């Protein structure tokens, strides 16, 4: 049973608030990414790859039967810093209902963490497209 969203966020904000410089942030993200299990090779295929130019992000979604339904996501990236950011996104969005996903202001959270620039479509790192695809999947699932 996933923890309440607010607990996860509070912990995250606390952790990032304590960091002094970009090096600490990146090292934390790298650690986070390393802890996220690798996606099996069979799933790192073209249909699961989201649009991004500089690095690859793969996303797989599964719907858990429930009322309302719950969306579980699995994701991976070949770039470690991006993978850490992917891990944060999964922490926030996976195991949630479509409504929770659609009402979640990811931009605000990333700004709060000082990571907003990584979500920009201009970054071309796949994160923006990943969030877009998650939201589209959630929209498809909601009534």
């Amino acid at each position, binding site marked *: 049973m996933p923890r309440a969203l607010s607990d996860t966020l509070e912990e995250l904000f606390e952790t990032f608030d304590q960091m002094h410089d*970009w090096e600490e942030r990146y090292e934390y993200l*790298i650690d986070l990414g390393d802890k996220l299990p690798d996606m099996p090779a069979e799933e790192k295929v073209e249909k699961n790859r989201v649009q991004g*130019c*500089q*690095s690859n992000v793969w996303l797989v979604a599964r719907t858990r039967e429930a009322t309302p339904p719950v969306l579980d996501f699995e994701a991976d990236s*070949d*770039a470690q810093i991006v993978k850490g950011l992917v891990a944060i996104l999964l922490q926030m969005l996976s195991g949630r209902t479509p409504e929770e996903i659609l009402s979640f202001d990811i931009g605000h959270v990333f700004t709060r963490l000082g990571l907003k620039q990584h979500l920009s479509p201009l970054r071309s790192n796949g994160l923006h497209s990943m969030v877009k695809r998650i939201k589209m999947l959630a929209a498809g699932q909601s009534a």
Partner: protein
Amino acid sequence: MPLDPAALRRDFPILDIRLHEAGVPLVYLDNAATTQSPKPVVDAMVKAYEGSYANVHRGIHWLSDQATIAYEGAREKVRAFIGAESTDEIIFTRGTTEAINLVARSWGDANVKAGDEILLTLLEHHSNIVPWQQLAARTGALLKYIPIHDDGTLDLSTLDQLLTARTKLLAITAVSNVLGTITPLAELIPKAHAVGAKVLIDAAQSVPHAVTDVRKWDADFVAFSGHKMLAGSGIGVLYGKRALLEAMPPFQGGGSMIHRVELERFTPAELPAKFEAGTPAIVPAIALGAAIDYLGVIGMEAIGEHEHRLTREAHQVLGRIAGLKIHGPSPEKKAGIVNFSLYGANGREIHPQDAAQVLDRGGVAVRAGHHCAMPLHERLGLSASTRASFYLYNTSEEVERLAVGLEKVLHVFRRG
């Protein structure tokens, strides 16, 4: 006379900017992507807009005369810079990509048919691949590729099978934008002509850094970009031999490129106007003229030597870093581009994007990705690579800063 980058840098205020909250100085090593513009070039643009700007060719008023003189003056500067015979052979375009597309459409559609072959190399940038793929799809022609050795030099052992009487065109880069490889054009161009093929050179990475003589090359078409040679965005050049350009139908249709328009037909204008439809990029062309003046004072040979020295230094300094692998040929066989991969703990590759992000925090600007050359990366077994590229304003200190930055990358990704 050896060039003095410290003195030249005074012409480029952007090189003094500080980055991020920490205010780290910029180390700009992404010149293969685009180059900075010196004050004389920027001033020439401002001067044009502030004192002599109007539409060209059409007007009879004084401002229009001034603008036309400046625009056509820039065309003559380009002609002299690349050693072309006539300004009729100098077509202004948006860049290298548009120039190649022009040839693929205008020359390609008229001269290539089903079963013909177009010969490329595995080094090519997408801009010198995709237009030919499109041409092949339209005409039923076939694409072939000259392979490469592992060090990024061309493998010419099968050239006789690849370059045949069926080959209509050899489209080849002068310098690889990924690996810096200098291709053996002096050897390949006569061979292509001997089988009746034309030759198009993607000279985007060579014209800004070396002496160019299109007649010595005897190339049929040469394409290059202004923004890679200090001129700012929006201008490029297609050089084509007069006889070819004259025989080719126009590319884009519209104003300026016509002689006469009736309801159902038009007659095209003469060269070079025939291939310059619509109002041109007047001020960017003037900027290109100013860039050529600036480069002329320094001397292309001095620039080439300077970059060669930096490349040798980079190979030395980067070669000492454990966990760094340089791709491409040795310094004598390449231009001022150094491409590499980094490996962290357990020999696991550090993704170029990760490396570039960390380098950026230290002020070092390089490029990470496939550099618009996916077939080349596939051949090298890489999904992406990191590239540092030099120009006249880079210094040995900056090569050191790159090395320091790379050590930092390895440190960040190797803990534990």
